[in-house]
Structures are given as structure tokens and as C-alpha cells.
């Protein structure tokens, strides 16, 4: 469905005039350059995380544990900005579940508090605890997990039994291994896993510290290799870039689809409003580290980046070029102003959540039943994202030269296309 909106025709017609066709290709170039830089930054900071994790495993201490957590938090800043590349780019969408799947039944991975419960109707593996169990049965198959390797996590455990909540890899699995469960409910504090969970020998807490270290190491290595792969997809000659460039109309559609779907269905809907309405302290994107305010904020920044054609790298350099904004401004300057204002408003509203969280009002506290201040903050972000989605739809329509949009529509030429 999300791809349907943009297969309309008329973007193509807008681009049929030669001056704009030139611009559209440049806009796509800028977008692909930002993607390459943004995934490249995600990779670099994941390598920083890998170094910090190795240090934690080699010499476990409160200091190396804190450094690993800090490296994880830093790594999230560029990554969350890349989420705007997901929807609309099939290569990214098919891949991203390996690195950012959420929410997860963390009992699959390691020990959990008694209140977590056991297997559920929906997930028989919710409390499997692979770190404590070198052998187990999975959908009738005997699994040898005596060695915890990237292949085991990726090939056997991740989405085991076809259950999406069986998240064995990626940022949130690593987050759980660094922070542990947040047992503070709606109160102050994030997860508080002791560094001694990685101590070897007698100092080891909660058992199986060697296997826990193996798991953390394997998951971090996988994150790095997965980010290497996707960065390559956006380099010159990479499949994601080539796919984008094949068809200017479809390429612009991909940009707008990513902006709209991340704004509305994903961030405003699934991640923010639903969590608020469930009043569950675990219904936040980074529930172990209490970093959700940053997850949402950098999603908003990423959406703005691709419209404005401008991305500030983690080393301070800027990647910029001809943008979708330029294209819209040439067609309809008022709409471009509207779109820019809406993007600003949403980033500002998400920024208010971030500000409050950094001042001590954590996102899980905002989710508490009857917390009116928290509800207002979160709904401010939701409303901003929904509001900008309407303008994104207008941009789709505006690039469409109105009225003659029917000719050449994929959905008309090939009615089955919309279901693909």
C-alpha cells in the first residue's frame, strides 16, 4: 500500500519536461549520497561500539561497561537518521530487521526477572534463554548452541519460529546485553545490568558470563558486518543506488514514501501513540537504555535531512546538494514553505520530548497512566508527524501536475502491481 501512492503517474509527467528531469536526477544523487554517508557514519560508530565491547569483554569493569553503553548511545544517533531510507527502498526494507528489529522478547536471549513470565501463546520461545542453554529444541529441530556464533544468531535464533519478537540480533539485542531489563516500571532509572555479568571466574554474576560475552561479541560483529553491507549498497555501483536511479519517477516516489511511512504509520503510530495508549513502560523503542527520546528525535531529523538534501556527518562535515525541496519550490513555492515549516514543527515537538527526558523526565515515565504532561509531550510529537504527513501527500500530488495524472499510472497499466 505504501508504495501505491507514489506509483502515480504524474510525478513522471512533471519530470517529462527536460529542465526538471535534470533536477530530479540531481535530487536522487543527493539522496543517495546522504544515504551512503549516513550508513557510513552508522558503520563507523558501530565499529567504535565493537572496540568498546571488546574492551568490556577483555577487561570487565564498571568503566569498560559504561564506555560500551556510551558507544551504543553514540551509534544510535546516525543510525536513527537512516530509518527514512527504509520504506520505499526494498533493499533497505528487506535488510533492516536484522539490525533494528523491535520490540523483542528478551527472555529468548538471557535471564529475565520473574515477573517477565514464561512462554506465551504467541511465542513459545519467549523465555528460551539461549545464554544459559547450550542445547534446545526449536520447531522440532535439535539446536546445538554450545558455541554462540554470528551464524547461530542470524541463521537459527533471529525470528525463530517465524515470530518477529524473537529478536536475536541488532541494536536492541545489544542494548539488552549492555543494560538488562529496566525493572523500574514508570519510575526513574534504566536497565541496571551489573558489569560483573561479564566478569569471568568467581566474580561472574547470573551465570554463563563466558557465553554472555560470546553473545555480545557475536551480535556486535554482526551489526558491523550488516552495516558494511548496506553502506556498500549505497556506494557508486551499489544495488540500492542503482535501483533508485533506474527510474526518476520511482526514485522520487521512494524518497516520499520513506518520509511519509516513517512519519505516520511507523513513528507516530506504531512506536509513539500505541505505546502511550498502552501505558506500558516497556512500550518504548529503547526500553532497556531509556534512549527512546533520541530514537524519535533522530527519526524526525532524518526525515528533514532527505527533504532538505542536507546531512551533517558525525565528523561535522556536511553532505548536501539539489534537494526535493528545490524541486517542490520550483513547482509550488508555497507548498515548499509549508513542507519546511511542518518538518521544523515536528522536529521541534520531538525535541521537546528529548529536552524533558534529558532533564530527568524519562520516556517511560511519560507513558504512565494518567500522566497528562507526558501524554501532551508525546502527542505533540505524534501530531507534528501526522501533520507533516499531510504535506508530504500534497508534495506527491503537486509533483503530479493535477488532472492528467492518470496516464501511465502503474496501478492502471498493471492493476496487480499495487499488490506487489
Amino acid at each position: 500500500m505504501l508504495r501505491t501512492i507514489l506509483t502515480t503517474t504524474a510525478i513522471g509527467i512533471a519530470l517529462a519536461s527536460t529542465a526538471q528531469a535534470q533536477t530530479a536526477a540531481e535530487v536522487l544523487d543527493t539522496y543517495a549520497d546522504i544515504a551512503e554517508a549516513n550508513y557510513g557514519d552508522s558503520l563507523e560508530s558501530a565499529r567504535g561500539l565493537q572496540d568498546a565491547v571488546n574492551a568490556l569483554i577483555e577487561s570487565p569493569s564498571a568503566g569498560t561497561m559504561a564506555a560500551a553503553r556510551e558507544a551504543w548511545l553514540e551509534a544510535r544517533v546516525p543510525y536513527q537518521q537512516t530509518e527514512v531510507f527504509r520504506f520505499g527502498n526494498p533493499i533497505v526494507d528487506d535488510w533492516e530487521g536484522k539490525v533494528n528489529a523491535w520490540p523483542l522478547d528478551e527472555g529468548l536471549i538471557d535471564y529475565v526477572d520473574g515477573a517477565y513470565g514464561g512462554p506465551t501463546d504467541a511465542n513459545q520461545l519467549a523465555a528460551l534463554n539461549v545464554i544459559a542453554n547450550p542445547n534446545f529444541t526449536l520447531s522440532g529441530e535439535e539446536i546445538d548452541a554450545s558455541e554462540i556464533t554470528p551464524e547461530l544468531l542470524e541463521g537459527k535464533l533471529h525470528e525463530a519460529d517465524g515470530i518477529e519478537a524473537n529478536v536475536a540480533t541488532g541494536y536492541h539485542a545489544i542494548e539488552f546485553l549492555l543494560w538488562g531489563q529496566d525493572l523500574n516500571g514508570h519510575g526513574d532509572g534504566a536497565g541496571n545490568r551489573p558489569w560483573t555479568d561479564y566478569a569471568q571466574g568467581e566474580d561472574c554474576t547470573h551465570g554463563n558470563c563466558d557465553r554472555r560475552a560470546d553473545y555480545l561479541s557475536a551480535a556486535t560483529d554482526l551489526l558491523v558486518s550488516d552495516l558494511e553491507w548496506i553502506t556498500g549498497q549505497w556506494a557508486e555501483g551499489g544495488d540500492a543506488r542503482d535501483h533508485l536511479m533506474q527510474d526518476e519517477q520511482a526514485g522520487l516516489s521512494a524518497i516520499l514514501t520513506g518520509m511519509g511511512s516513517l512519519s505516520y504509520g511507523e513513528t507516530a503510530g506504531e512506536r509513539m501513540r500505541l505505546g502511550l495508549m498502552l501505558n506500558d513502560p516497556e512500550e518504548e523503542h529503547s526500553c532497556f537504555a531509556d534512549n527512546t527520546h533520541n530514537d524519535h528525535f533522530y527519526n524526525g531529523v532524518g526525515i528533514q535531512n532527505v527533504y532538505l538534501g542536507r546531512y551533517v556527518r558525525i565528523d561535522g562535515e556536511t553532505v548536501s546538494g539539489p534537494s526535493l525541496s528545490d524541486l517542490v519550490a520550483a513547482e509550488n513555492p508555497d507548498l515548499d514553505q509549508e513542507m519546511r515549516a511542518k518538518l521544523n514543527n515536528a522536529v521541534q515537538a520531538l525535541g521537546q520530548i528529548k529536552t524533558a527526558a534529558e532533564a530527568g523526565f524519562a520516556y517511560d515515565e511519560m507513558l504512565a497512566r494518567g500522566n497528562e504532561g507526558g501524554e501532551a509531550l508525546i502527542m505533540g510529537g505524534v501530531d507534528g508527524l501526522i501533520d507533516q504527513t499531510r504535506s508530504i501527500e500534497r508534495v506527491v500530488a503537486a509533483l503530479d501536475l493535477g488532472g492528467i495524472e492518470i496516464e501511465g499510472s502503474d496501478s492502471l497499466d498493471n492493476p496487480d502491481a499495487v499488490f506487489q
Partner: protein
Amino acid sequence: MRYLSILVLSLGFAAPTFAGVDQSLDQHILPGFDRFAESADALAKTAAQDCRPQAVRPAYQAAFDAWMPLADLRLGPSETGALSVGFWPDPRGFTPRTLTRLVADEDPIARDPEGYDDVSIAARGFFALEMLLFDPAFSHYAPGSYTCDLVATIAADLEHQADDLKSDWQTGFAATLRNAGEVGNATYLSRDEALRALYTQVLSSLEFTATKRLGEPMGTFARPRPALAEARRSDRSLRNVVLAAEAAHGLATALADWPVPEIDAALDRVHEAAARIEDPGFQDVDNPQGRLRAEVLQQAVTGLRASIEVELGARYGIAPGFNAQDGD
């Protein structure tokens, strides 16, 4: 390509009048909220008199029937309001968990219908009621028990929600749709935008029915998941599919200003496929025959969606906007 000629022809006629927005409100949406409010009122009154399952179930079924024509709308007051009336799917079991906790703690909120709107949506609306009225883990409660009071409170809260939705649509949002494009309407800057918003609801609803109401229990051939069928405890899974398809058809025909024989025929095919389903709760999707029948129904729902795109969307020259189900 074969549809292009239809289009080109239709462009030759006078432009559509866009009466469709008014018709969809007057024929489908507003009367629907009237009926829903009435049946939710009846449900609340029934539960207030006798909150035991046998007494409440018929009114529950009637209210759910009245809700289905509106269930998939996600705009205006329903953008957020629909979620607390019908929280589903619930892949991580929030509803049983939240209800279990309320009952175990005997949380006093169960005796406060006015304050109940602060409670998690997992413990509100039709699916919370269904769990309490139909699931053996909850449904053996006695009159005067905590659970019995909780049922009456959830029913009363549902009535409040129905009243709020009705009045918010009638007094506010209906005008926003009708006045699309007029000065001061910041939501819809043109008639086209209002039309597209409603059209998006029709297509999103059918997609939801195909991928969730049918797709969730079907799972994969190797791993069907009948336990994930919507409203299986109250044996409403099939009924909800049919009512949702009829609602999409009703809204589509209201939006159209012209005869829609293809759309009508596509709805007939949904009814035919539905008539062959043997288990109203889709619990037979784990055998090949049951699965095949569900697949045929799923194809019929998808076919209805396709015919609406061709016979309605193409003629208006509109494509759907973003929908609330986009995302993971």
C-alpha cells in the same frame, strides 16, 4: 493497459461532481455512528443490570456488528479514537496480561467508569470485553465479583467512547470534510484531499482485512496460526471479515457518483467465498482444505480492493495517501 481506455473515456465526460464526500458522510459514516452509539448504550445498560457472560454476550455481539462499518476508519476523531474501541492485533498479548493484572490487583479503577479512559487500551473496548466474556481463564466469574464489575465498567466506558465519537464526527469533523478547500480549513486544502482521505480509508481497510484478519491466522502453509484470528473467542472472525468488506463496499459506493458494477460483483465474490468457510473463528486454517477456503476469501477481498481502485480511484484520478497501517 487494458484499463487505460476506460480512463480516457471517463475523462471525456464531465468531471465528477465530488458529491461523494457528502454521500459517504450521510449514507455511511454518520448513520453508522448513530447506530453504534445506540447499540453501545444497550450493551452498557445490559451489563449494568447483569454483568454475567450469558446476559451480556448478545448485546456484545450486536454492538460489535454496529462497530464494524466504522472499525477501520483512521481519520478525524477515529484517528486515535478507534484504537481504544478495538485494540487488535495484539501479538504480544497485552490484553490478557493487562486484564490479569487488573483482576489480581483488584485495581479500583474497575469501579470508576468515568476515570476508566485513563486505562491502557489493552483493557478497553471490544477485545478486552471479549476476553472477559468468552475466555475460560476469565469468564467463570460470579455476580458481584471484581471481574463482573470490570465488565460493566468496560461496557460503560465503551458507551462513552461511542457517544464521543458520534458527537465529534457530527459536530466537528463532518464539516471539516464537507468544507474541504474552503478558507479556514487547514486540514483539507481542496475537495480532492477530502476525497482522497476517504478513499484511502476504503483501500486501507481492505488491505487490513486481507493481511491481518485473514493473513494472521493463515500464517504460512507450514506454520498456520489459528490462535491469532481476530475475535476468535466470540466466533466473529469470519463475520468481521464480511462486515468489513461490506463496509468498504458501502463507503466506496457512497463515494462514487455512478453505477459500480465491477465493485458490486467483487463484493458478491467475497460473499460466495465467505459462504464456503466452515469455521466462523478460522480455527480450521491449519488443515489444507480450511486454508484453501481462507485463501479464496483472501483473494476475493484483494479483488474487491482492485476493482475499487479501477472503478472508483481511476475515474476520480486519485491514488491513496499514506495509511495508518504503514510501517512494520
